[in-house]
């Protein structure tokens, strides 16, 4: 692989995870905040809220994971390595 391709790949891998983490980060913060609010208002619903929160957090996390998959492909299985 020539140096410009590897430099671009490494940079792109960093950007893919870094930029991909922004949105889900905000989303997970919102979700967790609302869950805490819900528990404060209705402590007896804690179990149900926790279950739903974990499930939805994992969904949001998946978005960053897509970025990570792209980064991993660029680092370990680069199609442009040629």
């Amino acid at each position: 692989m020539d140096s410009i391709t590897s430099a671009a790949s490494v940079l792109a891998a960093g950007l893919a995870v870094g930029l991909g983490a922004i949105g889900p980060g905000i989303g997970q913060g919102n979700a967790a905040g609302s869950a805490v609010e819900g528990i404060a208002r209705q402590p007896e619903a804690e179990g149900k809220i926790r279950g739903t929160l974990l499930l939805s957090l994992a969904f949001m996390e998946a978005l960053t994971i897509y970025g990570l998959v792209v980064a991993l492909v660029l680092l370990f299985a680069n199609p442009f390595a040629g």
Partner: protein
Amino acid sequence: MPFILPFAELEVGQHLYWQLGNYKIHGQVFLSSWVVIGALLALVVVGTRKLERDPRGVQNLLEFLWDYIRELAREQIGEKAYRDWLPFIGTLFLFVFVSNWGGALIPWKLIHLPSGELGAPTADINTTVALALLVSLAYFYAGLSRKGLRYFEYYVEPTPIMVPFKIIEDFTKPLSLSFRLFGNILADELVVAVLAFLVPLIVPLPAMFLGLFTSAIQALIFATLAAYYIGEAVHEEHH
């Protein structure tokens, strides 16, 4: 690009190739899946050997698991159809769960392979894509067998404008299902490997526990989503 860490020796993209006809298959994934399948079979056989009225030991664990999976399936698929899909959902959940935990807990490094390394079968994209495509087939079969051609009404509800989106959805469902599981498990292994490379002692432990937690959640999510998709396909609209 060779990327081999001295302590954790993480070898992403290196496989133990077996030749099967015209296909090259990833041998290490097969080996670890067989271990997982064998462990599950052994557990079930041992647990159901001598059934007792008061469950103890392995039987107790199996009954707890069965209860848990039944609740999951009933909640997503609904009272009418969940019995038919309980074995499928249960198998998916147990296989993914035991694969994820087995990849982290079994000391695979003691077994040396000529190339590649043993690990969680779900950290290989082929396994997760196969599982996700099975889920796709399952929900099409569920919908078609329960409703016949009326299943395709689902595509024009609530308005026919939704048709392209619903068709795209059929492709994005297996895509996201497989990538989510693959990415999470591989990410856990990578994080632990990188931390073990930087500081070999103690420091990777919290990341390992977080990895166990997220892999359990991912197994739950995979099973829940599979059940949800099937439930969506068999759901009857009440007009």
